[in-house]
Structures are given as structure tokens and as C-alpha cells.
């Protein structure tokens, strides 16, 4: 139902993404598409797949940003994967006129019921994060399911009962768990790394967290500099010293 759960779910399953490690390889995006095109919201339709305007349904997309600090002149490149954040206060849910867009009480996962969605697209206007994916071919809205058909799936070996994007990430930049439990490993990780929520000002209270890039070492950290044992021209002094010095 599109009324949000009266009491926000205790269990908040979500993703934690480490921007300090993400190399922007798109593996999570493609593996997500691969799993889900035959999954709960199948298919993830592609339009004009071999033509001029290839355009498909993706639940996860990788953006690349540059951050530039005018004062220090320092800049950095950051790869930024983004999928549904499974917000506690999900506007995509409350605006939905049909109840197709809903948030599960059990675990806070936000889903779309494709059987009753009328394709009015209002939820995609309501989502600040661009996490709603309209399937123009089927005329219904689709989105990241947090791989609900994997994480509880007894047909899969235990170690695979995690979102596809998480288990495939070559860099290990993606983590999955219960962010509702402050003692869960994901929560500890977020705590330790100062994980952030996206656009808090939008009041959506996202569940997913992003671990910001670490402060780059280098420049500012000066280790003990090397002492030259000899500064004679072309190191002649050193060579002379070595002639009868046991160095090994």
C-alpha cells in the first residue's frame, strides 16, 4: 500500500557504497541488469538496442564526477554508482495513486507492483534521485528491488543471497546489510567511515549510505626525508666509500 508503513520498519536493508574504492567499472550496473532482466521485474527492456538511440531500463548507473576546490586548487575524480536508496520517507510511494509503489514493512524495501501500475510516471517525478525506471515498452514503472529475489532465495547457495551488484563488485566497494540495526557490520562501517546520505534536504531519509573518499595522502604528509650519505659531484664519494665496504 502506498501509505508508508505506519511505524518505519525496524529492519532497513540497504547498500553501503565505498566511493574511496569504487573504480567505476560498471560491473555492478551490468550484473544488476543481467540478473534483473530475468528477475522480479523482468524484462529490463532495451529500445533500439543496435541503433542510433540505444536506451534501456537500468536499476543501477555509474556517474563520474570531478570535485574541485577553488581555494586549494586540488581536484579529484570520483566514480559514483547510484540505485534506489530505499528511503524511509519515500515520496515515490506516497504520490502513487494506485498502490503499485510500496514500501515493505518487513525490511523497508521499496518495490513496484507491475500488475497494477498504470504508468502515470508521477513517482519518477517524486524521486529526487532518479531511481525510478519507466519501461516504455511495458508501460509500467520499474526500479531496483534490492534483489529481493536473491537475498531471501533458498534456491541459491547461501553466499549468493546478496544483491547481484554487491557480490559481483570486483573492487569490493559495495556492502549489504541491515542499516536499521546500529550494531550490524554495515552500520559499524558507516559509523567508522562517516558514511553520508544523499540530499538529506529532500527529507526522504534514504537508507543507503555512501562512504566518502578518504583524504588523499601525499602532498601534505611529509615522511622523514632521505639523508644523502654523500653529496659529492656525481656521487664519486659514495663510490669511493663502497670500494672496500661490506654492504651485504
Amino acid at each position, binding site marked *: 500500500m502506498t501509505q508508508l508503513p505506519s511505524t518505519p520498519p525496524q529492519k532497513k*536493508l540497504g547498500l553501503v557504497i565505498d566511493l*574511496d*574504492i569504487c*573504480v*567505476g*567499472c560498471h*560491473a555492478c550496473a551490468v*550484473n544488476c541488469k543481467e*540478473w534483473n*532482466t*530475468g528477475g522480479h521485474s*523482468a*524484462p529490463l*527492456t*532495451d*529500445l533500439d*538496442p*543496435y*541503433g*542510433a538511440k540505444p536506451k*534501456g531500463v537500468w536499476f543501477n548507473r555509474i556517474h563520474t564526477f570531478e570535485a574541485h576546490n577553488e581555494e586549494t586548487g586540488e*581536484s*579529484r*575524480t570520483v566514480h559514483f554508482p547510484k540505485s534506489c536508496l530505499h528511503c524511509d520517507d519515500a515520496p515515490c510511494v506516497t504520490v502513487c495513486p494506485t498502490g503499485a509503489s*510500496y514500501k515493505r514493512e518487513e525490511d523497508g524495501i521499496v*518495490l513496484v507492483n507491475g*500488475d*497494477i501500475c498504470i504508468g502515470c510516471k508521477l513517482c519518477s517525478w517524486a524521486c529526487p534521485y532518479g531511481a525510478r525506471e519507466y519501461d516504455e515498452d511495458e508501460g509500467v514503472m520499474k526500479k531496483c528491488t534490492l534483489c529481493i*529475489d536473491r537475498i*531471501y*532465495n533458498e534456491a541459491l547457495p547461501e*553466499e549468493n*543471497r*546478496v544483491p547481484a551488484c*554487491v*557480490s*559481483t563488485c*570486483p*573492487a*569490493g566497494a*559495495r556492502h549489504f546489510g541491515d542499516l536499521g540495526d546500529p550494531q*550490524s*557490520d*554495515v552500520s*559499524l*562501517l558507516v559509523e567508522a567511515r562517516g558514511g553520508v546520505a544523499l540530499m538529506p534536504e529532500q527529507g526522504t531519509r534514504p537508507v543507503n549510505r555512501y562512504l566518502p*573518499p578518504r583524504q588523499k595522502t601525499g602532498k601534505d604528509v611529509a*615522511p*622523514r*626525508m*632521505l639523508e*644523502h*650519505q654523500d653529496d659529492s659531484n*656525481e*656521487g664519486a664519494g659514495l*663510490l669511493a666509500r*663502497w670500494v672496500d*665496504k*661490506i*654492504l651485504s
Partner: protein
Amino acid sequence: MVANPFETVKEKVDLSVDPSDEVKTTTCYMCACRCGVKVHLKNGKVRYLEGNPDHPVNKGVLCAKGSAGIMNQNSPAKLKKPLLRTGERGSGEFREIEWDEALALAAEWLGDTRRKDPHKLAFFTGRDQSQSFTGWWAKQYGTRNFAAHGGFCSVNMAAGGLYTLGGAFWEFGEPDWDLTRYFMMFGVAEDHDSNPIKAGIGKMKSRAGTKFVSINPCRTGYSAVADEWVGVRPGTDGLFVFALIHELLRAEKIDFASLARYSNAPWLVIQDPGAADDGLFARGEDGQPLVYDLESKSLVSFSTPDFKPAFAGERTLPDGRKAVPSFELLARRYLSDAYSPDAVAEQTGVSADAIRRIAAELAEAAFESEVVLDVPWTDAWGRKHDKMIGRPVSFHAMRGISAHSNGFHTCRAIHILQALLGSVDTPGGWRNKAPFPRPAPPGPKPAGHAADGGLPLGGMPLGTPFGPEDLIVDDAGEPVRIDKAYSWEHPLSAHGLMHMVLHNAWAGDPEPVDVLFMYMANMAWNSSMNTAGTLKYLTDKDENGEYRIPKIIYSDAFYSETVAYADLILPDTTYLERWDCISLLDRPISSAHGPADAIRHPVVQPDRDVRPFQDVLLDLGARLGMEGFVKDDGSAAYPGGYPDYITNHVRGPGIGPLAGWRGKDGDQHGRGDPNPDQLDRYIEHGAFWHHDLAPEQQYYKHANQSYLDYSHGMGWIGAAAPITFQLYSETLQKFRLAAMGHGAHVPPERHRERVKEYFDPLPIWYAPFEDEVDGVDEYPLHALTQRPMHMYHSWGSQNAWLRQITAANRLFMHVDTARELGIEDNDWVRVSSRTGYVKGQVKLVRGVNPQTVWTWNAIGKRKGSWGLSKDAPESNRGFLLNHLIDELVPRGAEKARYSNSDPVTGQAAWFDLRVKVEKCAPEEAGLTDPLYPDIAPMPEAPERLDVLRYGKDLTGTPTAGTAEAEDWIAHRHELAQTIEGMRDGQYGRAGKGDKA
């Protein structure tokens, strides 16, 4: 229908759908990393591809390409039937023919040529993963004109390492990801070890107290997550590394103990200018190099277990001549003020302070944070050590270093720096992967001298020369191979020069070929330099209207640009449809932990009339009656095709393509008789074999007796003797002496200066050749390409998913550089070099060296190819830099035109390119240029899809029950050490979430 409009319908979600009817394990080939993949099949179609968690390479992860394998299998560009050219070359006009006709025709062409002169066949196999088989085919056929893609790929890195450490960066080694503290990456965007590198970086960055430095003009991918990015100017890394060595020498931060034992640093070098052996090592009666022992104050053989060698000082040899330790020569060179940080700062674009700091950080990591493992081991001199002491500094370098005309020496310099820090194959350092290390150089030598006639060839066409006598030249010292490999123009071309074949075959230089046989290389487009010229070479005709390259046979799996330029097309299967063998005899998938090899086996049925290329080669071999391919009665030696060959072929005593489960009962590994059930064993074990080395064999492999015995037993090295690092290369000095006129094999006069200059036994730096071409100032910028992590060269563009990510490429440029040129973001620009020009659209960024522009590699496509529509972005806005790169460069006083390659190895110098960038006139914007005529669509091509609904029919039936959701923390073990309260995957919940 009766429905209550006010009712809220609750969705019933199937939480436990079984994704597959059947799961098969095989090896991915969406790139050369060769990860283990689990193929979920449903309704006979591929439902899902996922990483195999047990596989030594990828440990369960799968990259973007691998995940898109479904769309490779689903590609409309898949070739369907053998094709015979009907129109002009390049038109794309073909007619489908039956395999019988195709094979008969191929056998006829190849047979005639073989009877006439087998060397008139040029057989070149690009992205080949069965080189030990294709090379053997060439050998048995009797042509010396064979190579795979290594020459235009990264032979500088391979040769640089093999001639120095007997192992190399590239895929022959890897950092000790679990223990390394300081990791430096030179010129890597992605590399072959795609997944292991990503996992390794993630792992090391998750540990406290580590640092990752990336030296790269472009800040993308790995460089973006590096703790420090050094935006070096292209082609100048050599200077940067020399300056680091300079600093370390001045501070005496050198692992002398390691050098004394494991390197030729103490070996005495004869100082006798003018003599035929000047600069060679002084050797005793036993032929062993001599060192000066400071304790006994005498010359001793390097083979004596214990000595305290001098690292400097002139000594007198028994014959009265003078000699100095090679280390002194090395030290003299790099202590020179010319290589001080201040001296190189401007050219490299790296500040002297940064260089000094990095040198200090290296020394600190290497000498003040030793890693000690309580693992006793015995060295090659029988001395027992109760610990393994490691210097946790590791390097990795790839094409950013090798793809320059000065790459060989820079590659050597980086390997040498690794050795000077004493971190070669030590805990936390850089580690060899089996079958490496091998002696430096490893051998065998290349076969196919003008002299050695007869069939088959005396040995494998490719190898590693030890000296001038090993070159493949005629009596006048002139090239005889079609690619001029192993000639005086680039003597150590261990992988050949595939990038010169089309030009030389067209020019009939050194001599024309009758048949050009190519496999898996898109030479008519993204793997050739000078695209326009290349297309001319392929289509040019002689005075009597015959093509100057008479016959071209090509095997591809897809409708690539090159297909259109061949006369006879032998369509291959996809990697999910065939048998393959990733062999230790070839480019294995071993890790530092131990050897591994793997297979592919058919997991889906081909839906077209195509055949595995390896089967085709076996068939042709039999039709031609080639030795080894037929039994004495003339019948096929491997009637069962490639799987038959993989199982039963014997290369050496007890050695075959696969090392696992050999012997009648399949209980032997490495050596053993063929085992008829071997392939079944592989399939049962996830399509790979892997052996974990014992703890005492894991490190110091170059001097670890237990490991050396094992390596010898496996047939990887000729003798279980220690492998000595060749910091000073006697091999190079031999060529230099020849250039000075010494010995029986001397270069033709016109090459002498060149050989003398570039065969310096110690690494040198010189400006990339393009920087010295007249008028280069007109082209102020360096232009580079990088591999997109989600595309494999040309073949990602046929992939419905991957092409959505990048269907058109931009030219990335620094905002400040653009401002100076009056270029704004998203402008269309004209990029020109002395060779040609292309048009493309810019994207302005800050993360790039200001003197450098770059773009993603191989995105641009020829109209009509790859099953794409003619208005596809790839062929209207996508562009290649290959149009701008000349395959020849004027060199030397008389400006002779040499291959645009490294003068030592013949490595293609892709990244020497210099360009200028100008804003397009408004009316020129929007469309790339040059545009070549369209290629006609493939015969019987499937009609183009408007909507792709893959998976709609693959959603399966629910099964009962649902499990508790499990959490997942990547690098759990590393994170657990730094985060209070986090559970460590290694204990209790073993391995959970920890992929390594």
C-alpha cells in the same frame, strides 16, 4: 471485471525463484583475464552469468564485460556461415558457402603455398588464447611468419621483465596484495588482470597504513582511487624512475644483501674498450661469473655459497685486465646529476619535492616496515632461513610504459627499482606467477633462420634471442620474416610485429606473401596504425590487376571491419560454444600462490553453421598431411577435434596442454601420460586446475630450492638452479659489441649506430621518437587512448548493454589547455597529427596532464560493421586515434623510415603520438571525419530489433520457503582489523563476504 477501485492490491513476490534449470562452470572470454564463470541456463538459454567463487582468478566476482556475456551470445553481428568474397575487398559483398567448399578452398590455397615455399604463408593470430597450439601449427606447416598480437600489445613489458628478472609485470606477476604496504602503478588503465587488480586495490586500501600511488597522465579508474596521483608527462617515466633510483642510491637505501645474492650487481664487468668482450662478464674456469669477495680479498665464483662482494672498485682479472662490479656502472649512471630530481622535474612534469618524497616513502616502506613471516625455507645454496623477511613495496606497470619507443628501457628500469629495494618475490613485494621465474632471458630461441629449410620448422617461430647469432636474418644480415621481427631493426622482438605485417606484405618487403591467414584480430580497423594506409594495403592491386596481398583467409566470430577485407571467412563459435585450453605452455592463469590452467567447454549449442577455429586448424592440418596432424596411415591424428588434441597431444616428456589430472588414473599433476578422462575431471572441478604452493615455496621463487625443484619437475625450467636478476644486461651488450663490428654476426652498416645506441646494457632514457620528428612543434600535445573497463577493444560495441554505456567517445582535455586554445566544453574539434586527422567532441576535465589529450579506445566503428545501424553513434560520433598514428617514423641522419616501434623489441609505440587540436567551424560540428564508405550488411543478417525484451521468458517458477537475508561486507578481514566490533570473515563465519 469485478474489482473494487478502492482496494489496495498487495503484491505477492516470489522470493525464491530458482534462476536456472542447470548451472555449468566454464571460463569467461569477454576479455583475456579468463575468470571462472557459472552459467545459469534456463529454457536452454543463458539466464545469468556469475563469477565462480572457487576460481583462483576472480573468486566470485564478474566485471561488466563478463556480466554482459549474454549479449555477446545474443549479438546480431555473429557470423553464421562461411563466406566467400564476391565484391571488391572492403565492400562487404559475400556469398555464403558450405564448410566443405570453404575448407577445400583453404586447403588448396595453403597447400599450393606450402609446396612452393611455406614461408609465403603469413599466419597471424591476434587475441589468440591458444598460441601454443597455433604456434605449433605454424611450426608444423613450416612457416616462420607467425606471431600473435604481443608485438603491438606490450612486448616491452614482457621482454623488459624477462630479460631482467626472468619474470615480468603484465600477467606474469602480481603484487602481494595481502601484505604490500606501498603500491606504485605505472601506466595502467585496466590491464589483463582486470578483476584481480580491482580486488587487490580494494583489499589493500581497506587495510590501515597502506599507500597506493598511480603514475599516469590521466586520472581515471584506478588512478582516481589512488592515494596519490602523479600526472606525469607521457614518455618520461624513465627519467622519473632514474630520479627515484638516484635518491635511493644517495641515501644508500638499497638492499645490498639481496643484490649480493640474487642479482648480478656484484658480477665483474670486463673493462677493455675496443676488445670483443669489453662490457661482458668476467668468468672463471667453471664459466661462472666472478665477484670480488671483500673478506677473502679475492676473486671468487658467484656459485660459492658465501661471500661478501664488493659493489664498487676496479679489480684486476687473472689475465691482468681490469673489471668493475656491474653495480658500480649502474650507480655511476644514476648518481649522475642529470638524473637528480631537480634535473628531471621539468621534463616529467613531476616536482622535485614530490620525487624526493616518494623516494623517501619507498625507502620507509621497504626498510622500516619489514614484513616477517615465521616460515622456514632453504635457499638454492642449501642455506636454511628460519624466517621470510619481506619489503612491502610493489609495482605494477603496463602499456603506458611499454607502448612508447623508449618503453623497453623504462620497463627494465622499473623492474630494476623493484630489485634494488629487495622486494622481488618477497612477502609484501612483487611476486612471480608460475611458470615464472625463468632464467633471464628464458629461451627457447626463435626458429626459422634463412638457413633452416625443410619441414617442419626447427622450433617454435617465436622465442627470446640470447645474442646476435639468434637473429632471424639472411647472410647479409637483412630481415627474412614478413614483420622483420628478430632483425637488426628490432632484435629482441619476442612477440613479433603484427602491426607491420599488412604494410610489409603490401610492400613485398622483405618479400611478398601468397596467403595472409589471420585469426581474431581486427587489423582493418582498431589494431592497426595508419588506418587509411592499412585499408590501401589490403585493397591495392598490382599492374595486372591482382591484389598485392593475393589471398586473405580470416577467422572471426563477428561481422567486424576486417571480415569485409578478407577473401574467405571461416566463422568461429563464441566462447560459450567451444572447447578452449588456457595452458601453462601459453599465457596461463596462475597466481602468485601457485600454478593454474583452465578450459572452456561448450555450454550452449551454436544456432548457426559455425565451427571452432581450433577444430578448423586441426582439419586443415590433416588435409595438408602436416606432421603431427596425421597418423602414419594419413588419417587425422586428432579425429576428436580440439578436445582430443587437448587431452592427447604430448609436447614434451609427460607434458601436454593441461597440467591437471594427468596419468592413466588422473592422479598426476604437471607431468604424466595423457588421461582420457582429463576433461571430465576439469569439468567436475569448475573447469580449472589450481595447485597451491607449500608455504615454504611461496616466496623467493628465484632462489628457493624447494620451489626450483618443483618448477624443474613441472618442466618450466631446464635445471633447478637459482635465477639471477640481470640488472646489467650482458645480452644487450653482446648486440652492442656486434654493432661495433665484433663477432661473426654484425648489423648492416646502416643499422649500426642505432643498435649501438639502443642496446645499452643499463637502462637509458631518450625522447620518444615522435618528439624528434621534424616539425613536431606544430603538434604540441600528446594523445593517448585508454581502455574502458566495460569494453573489450572493438567487440563491446555489438553488445546491447555495453554500448549503452559508451556508444560514442569524447576527447578528454584539461580545462586550462582548452582555455588557451579557445575551446569550450562539448565543442567539436579537429585533432591532427603529421599523419592524418579525426574529428570528435571534447569533454573538459581537470584530472589529466595539461600537455595530454586522451580518449577511450576502439569505440569508433566503420559504418555497416558489427550489426549496428548506419546511424549508430559509434560510426557517426565515435572516432579512433589510429587514423593519426603512422606505422613508420623517420629516424637517424638519413631519415630512414623505421617501424614506429621500440628499437629493441619492436613494440608498437602507440603512445608516442603528438597532435594539435583545433576548434571546428560550426558547420563542421556534429559528425566525425574521416568517414569511410559503408560496408554492406552481412549476408542473411537478422533484421534489426527495435525492442529487446531479453529475460521476459526466463522468469521462473517459485520454489518453497525463504531464507533469512544475509549481510555482506567486502574485505571483511581487512576491515575487521580497522573497525571496532566488526566480525572477521576469516574466523567463524569463514570467508563470508571476503572474496580474497
